[in-house]
């Protein structure tokens, strides 16, 4: 068998899940631990086939608790790491997503969302985990989550996710969904040289001088790896700059404030969104993932009726682009927010609009995508 390279430059006709796996490989991911779960399994299957070709390691763990831990451990051994799951597995991963946040471990976690709660709709779409992505692990924290709308976007955003995870030393979530995961489309993989990768920030001082949690100016500390002689201590307990546990209010404030600030104060470097005709619009449809895509037809129909409708699509969902939503709110009558849940990102839009514009939810329980007529009707109502 001829070995394929890590970056399969060229045009491909592949599913979103395969594109996600290829994006990971192109970003340098060489370790994947996962557990089969519909509708994300193809990501694991593709990694199982491809990782050995590029000298990487695939392991199917006994559950998602183990998968999440294994990718954290592998990151400390120097690998770029990823796991992929869906609702029930995502719930199990919340425990050690918190460990990844607390220990500042770069890794990427993919959620191909399905209908819930509980076992729900294994084979059918949902977008009900958006707030779980934000708040699902216990304690105060900030997170980064991206939302792709197509196989090409999930390829591109998976690379971006790895880069952000290295830049800010944080687990980065890719909040995709069943439709994008199983949709097959053209995906263009660029030449390897055109893919910009963020290297891991490793210590520039000797082990004697190294403080594992002494941050650089951007509030992100350098990360030593196991086996390099740094003999660092890494704990999920509240810790000081040495990495040692300190169970005091002062240590908690210093650490957690920095974990929050390293995302909040760097939000300009993280936030990304796509706007179409938002300037001068009376109504803005704010939507993400597959729902941003299904909004295109009703937006087009509304424009044909003469309504001034814009599309605002957060590509980075967390941190949420609150300043931009606030600016746009001043100029529009209303936001329309179609999403496959009963109001999650719409609550965020409402918060950021500060009462300057109405926010109209277009909820969907899951199992299918929005009927364009319902979104169109909401746009018409918003424009009145």
């Amino acid at each position: 068998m001829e070995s394929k390279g890590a970056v399969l430059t060229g045009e491909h006709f592949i599913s979103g899940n395969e594109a996600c796996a290829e994006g990971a490989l192109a970003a340098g991911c060489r370790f994947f631990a996962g557990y089969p779960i519909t509708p994300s399994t193809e990501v694991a299957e593709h990694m199982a086939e491809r990782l050995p070709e590029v000298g990487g390691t695939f392991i199917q763990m006994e559950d998602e608790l183990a998968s999440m831990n294994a990718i954290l451990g592998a990151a400390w051994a120097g690998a770029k790491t990823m796991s992929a799951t869906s609702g029930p597995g995502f719930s199990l991963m919340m425990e050690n997503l918190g460990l990844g946040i607390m220990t500042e471990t770069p890794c990427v976690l993919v959620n191909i969302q399905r209908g819930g709660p509980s076992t729900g709709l294994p084979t059918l779409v949902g977008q009900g985990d958006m707030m779980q992505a934000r708040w699902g692990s216990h304690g105060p924290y900030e997170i980064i989550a991206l939302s792709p709308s197509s196989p090409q976007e999930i390829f591109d955003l998976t690379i971006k996710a790895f880069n952000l995870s290295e830049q800010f030393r944080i687990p980065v979530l890719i909040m995709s969904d069943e439709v994008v995961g199983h949709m097959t489309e053209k995906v263009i993989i660029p030449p390897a040289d055109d893919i910009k990768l963020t290297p891991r920030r490793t210590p520039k001082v000797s082990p004697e001088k190294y403080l594992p949690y002494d941050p650089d100016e951007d509030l992100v500390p350098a990360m030593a790896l196991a086996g390099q002689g740094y003999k660092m201590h890494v704990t999920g307990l509240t810790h000081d700059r040495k990495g040692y546990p300190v169970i005091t209010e002062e240590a908690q404030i210093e650490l957690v404030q920095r974990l929050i600030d390293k995302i909040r104060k760097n939000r300009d470097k993280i936030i990304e969104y796509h706007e179409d005709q938002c300037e001068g619009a009376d109504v803005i449809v704010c939507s993400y993932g597959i729902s941003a895509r299904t909004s295109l037809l009703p937006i087009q129909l509304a424009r044909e009726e003469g309504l001034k409708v814009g599309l605002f699509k957060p590509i980075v969902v967390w941190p949420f682009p609150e300043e931009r939503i606030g600016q746009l709110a001043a100029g529009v009558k209303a936001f329309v927010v179609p999403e496959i849940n009963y109001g999650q990102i719409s609550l965020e839009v409402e918060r950021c609009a500060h009462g300057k514009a109405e926010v109209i939810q277009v909820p969907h329980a899951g199992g299918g995508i929005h009927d364009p007529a319902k979104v169109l009707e909401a746009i018409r109502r918003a424009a009145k």
Partner: protein
Amino acid sequence: MIERHPMDQLLREDRIPHIWCSGCGLGTSLTAFMSALQDTGISLDNVSVVSGIGCTGRVAGYVKLDSFHTTHGRPIPFAVGLHLANPSLKVVVFSGDGDLIAIGGNHFIHSARRNLDMTIICVNNFNYGMTGGQGGPTTPIGAKTSTTPYGNFEFPFNIPHLAAASGATYVARWTALDARRLRKSIHEALMKRGFSVVEIISPCPTLFGRFNRQGTGLDILNSYREQTVIQHGADPAKVGIEPGGKIIVGKFVDIERPTFLDVVNQGLKGKFGPPVEKPRAEELAIPSVDE
């Protein structure tokens, strides 16, 4: 005058004193491990110690090595990631019976099944010490704990049997009284290729000992002198700990079995050209007894 303690090289002095109670067996267990580690001659830069949560879980915080204090029950899967992403590391999981056998029991059996090349040191004090002495997966039937006020109604796990049945290549049990034998056994476990397990029966005079009128730590160690029987090669199925019965200690399992990476490398041999980026089993820096 002695300026340096012989263990200084291996301890984070700035974290001492430790939190463990007087009479606890964890100090002896940690000393046995560090002495064994020095005996092996393994480069300390290459050693990673991973712990979970609990009294034993604090071990990772005291050793001057790359050390990881993970979540409750999860040190083994974290260690799996460390090991597979860099097989030249010597990965040791040091945690308690509640952490490894109850909340982490699934990870324990599956990693043994895969025969991942790592050493598990499981300190068994028959209860959850950190949270105040609750019953656990190894609490003997009838024993009193803070959650078994009428005596424990559950049958306990026999850890060596569980490890052996799941596929471990090395299984031994000692008490905290057997300091020298324990050190030798941990040495063997560290040098063993595959999933090696050492169970340490350890006094908890503050909680389990007090609930069950076992006396001081010294009294409990003295009771080990009377209760323990060394039976190397004993059938792991027959070393369960019964209330008032003998504690059978010794090396129960020492077998050869291909490790997970042995099987991976065999299965992928010649399929994709030379290995990229990652050292393979034959490049491991860690010597093994069968080589």
